[in-house]
């Protein structure tokens, strides 16, 4: 029966929290209104762990982030919940200059085990602050690991890896996937950071995607299956990034489309594109194509469905590189 068990992505994250908090008393969570549970991933956690381990803070992201970092320096293992990942920008100095770079600057003598979490993603019609996907920001700054699951299975496994990691990890998920259901084993397992996953095998073109866009890519692959054989590679983790798996895929398909819901300019897709040029140029039969959010602020209202990468835009790019 257990192999059939399905959880939502939020439930999978919650299950990872529960298991890791039972396993390690140093693990605690802090965030704004996480006791009530703004989102289901923290719902009722304080019933088991108490309000001293599921901590509501004032509306003070900067103080909250610094508190997590200080607590980590003192030997705890905080899970810092920004609610929306865009709210982490309040704590830009703490997240990007301090947490990520402190270890190196201070002689690599003291670990900083912190998991930062937040939901993000375009398509909710509420504008930039609730949509911004900060993995591009994160990979630009050395010292932070960053991942984003596309499935509940990966969510539980990646979260366990993140909590057990001795480095700051920014763990993101797409708001539109929170209620997405999928198989999640009951037993303990870890999905290591830095290992991509082939979500669908193919031979004509590789689509590299993550989060919600993995599902958009899979739709395209299914739609085109009689014309073009599409391989869908889920990056899962942006830093460390599994370049080797991507290059192996391109070796087979010789074509690459990168789908990235973040802004196009200077983002993850641009970075991967450059890495493929440097390390896999000879494998390619066509130029790399990016499908990203255009370089405009993420709008609210009815507009954002036109700015986010859609199956239509991905299909167009796939057809173009396969021409």
């Amino acid at each position: 029966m257990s192999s059939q068990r399905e959880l939502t992505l939020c439930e999978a994250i919650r299950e990872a929290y529960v298991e890791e908090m039972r396993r390690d008393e140093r693990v605690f969570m802090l965030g704004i209104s996480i006791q009530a549970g703004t989102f289901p991933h923290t719902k009722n956690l304080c019933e088991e762990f108490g309000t001293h381990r599921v901590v509501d803070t004032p509306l003070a992201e900067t103080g909250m982030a610094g508190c997590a970092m200080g607590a980590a320096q003192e030997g705890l293992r905080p899970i810092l919940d920004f609610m929306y990942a865009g709210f982490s920008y309040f704590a830009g100095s703490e997240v990007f200059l301090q947490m990520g770079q402190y270890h190196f600057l201070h002689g690599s003598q003291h670990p900083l085990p912190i998991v930062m979490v937040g939901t993000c993603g375009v398509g909710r019609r509420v504008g930039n602050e609730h949509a911004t996907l900060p993995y591009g920001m994160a990979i630009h700054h050395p010292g932070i690991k960053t991942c984003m699951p596309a499935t509940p299975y990966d969510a539980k496994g990646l979260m366990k890896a993140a909590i057990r990691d001795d480095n700051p990890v920014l763990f993101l998920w797409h708001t539109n996937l929170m209620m997405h259901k999928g198989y999640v084993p009951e037993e303990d397992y870890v999905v290591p950071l830095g290992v991509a996953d082939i979500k669908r095998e193919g031979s004509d073109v590789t689509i590299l995607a993550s989060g919600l866009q993995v599902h958009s890519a899979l739709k395209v692959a299914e739609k085109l299956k009689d014309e073009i054989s599409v391989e869908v590679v889920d990056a899962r983790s942006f830093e460390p990034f599994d370049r080797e798996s991507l290059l192996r895929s391109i070796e087979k398909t010789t074509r690459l489309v990168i789908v990235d819901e973040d802004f196009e300019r200077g983002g993850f897709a641009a970075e991967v594109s450059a890495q493929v040029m440097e390390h896999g140029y000879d494998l390619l039969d066509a130029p790399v194509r990016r499908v990203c959010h255009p370089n405009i602020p993420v709008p609210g209202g009815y507009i954002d469905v036109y700015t986010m990468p859609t199956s239509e835009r991905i299909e167009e790019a796939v057809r173009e590189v396969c021409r």
Partner: protein
Amino acid sequence: MSLTNDQKIVLFRNLARAMALDRMMMRVIRAGKMVGFYHEGGIALAPGIAAGAFLQKEDPMWPHYRAHGLAHMLSKGIDIKYYVAEHMGREAGCCKGRSSFHMSFPEDHVFGFSGNIGANFPLSVGYGFAAKYKQSGQVVMNCSGDGSYGEGRCHEALLMSANWKLPAVFWCEANGMAQHSNVKDLFPGPNVSSLAAGFGIPSMVVDGQDLFACAEAALQALAHVRQGNGPIFVECKTYRVQEHSVGGVNYEGPNQRDPELMAKWKETLNPLALAAARLLAEKVLTQEDIDQIKADAEREADEVEAFCEASPKALPSVAEMQAAVYTA
């Protein structure tokens, strides 16, 4: 809370050491042997000695940046020569020569530094939170200047510390200057410690030139915190007679600060001279004792400089550094 004679002698010796090291740092930077910058302590080092004096090894402390925290750290019992070596970019540096001015003594619960003023406040909340979480009995010494209180994160930290009754001392070394601005032009009142009242945090104002008054305030504050009463705010009124950072002009707004007034402060408000006079009057030390302490301090400073110069310059390869970004 009154100090024993032995405590007074330790405090005095450590102030002499800190001021000798501060002068040595000035010699070193002027000789071009320091890789980064330095913010002279001058006559403002008595509060730092007091802040570190009564902490246990496991009590987290963030030093104030005047004299780059040398006073605080040596008073807490840290061997500061590795920190001075860091300033000279040496392999013996406490951060392996990667930071220029950051300290890193995790075993002494002095975890690091920041170039961003006020960065320590939320971290201190975390130290206090962890102390409560672990029920460890640790207390936190969060040192800053008065200029820090322009930063929003400082207010968040006061709020969170008060709300959670954290065992933290907000130790303010108020020299009245924030870089090249006078704090009276930046803050609407005579004492930044007046902020504490809004959070229900008790506070006191102390003469920062009086080493023993600062020490008594530290003892009182630590007792308050150790008894589980939540945070306390101590404002030590001190002076900055020199420019903000070595090599600059001592501005206040668009104008240069009055050199005659600076010289007068330096002459009349030297905390070591004031403490020496007290110890002589109370017959705790003789003039010979005082001279010996000062001579020992100068010799130590010279030895620290020599130790640093003997250490090779830290020049790791990019590959070595890339391997050091993450904890394995």
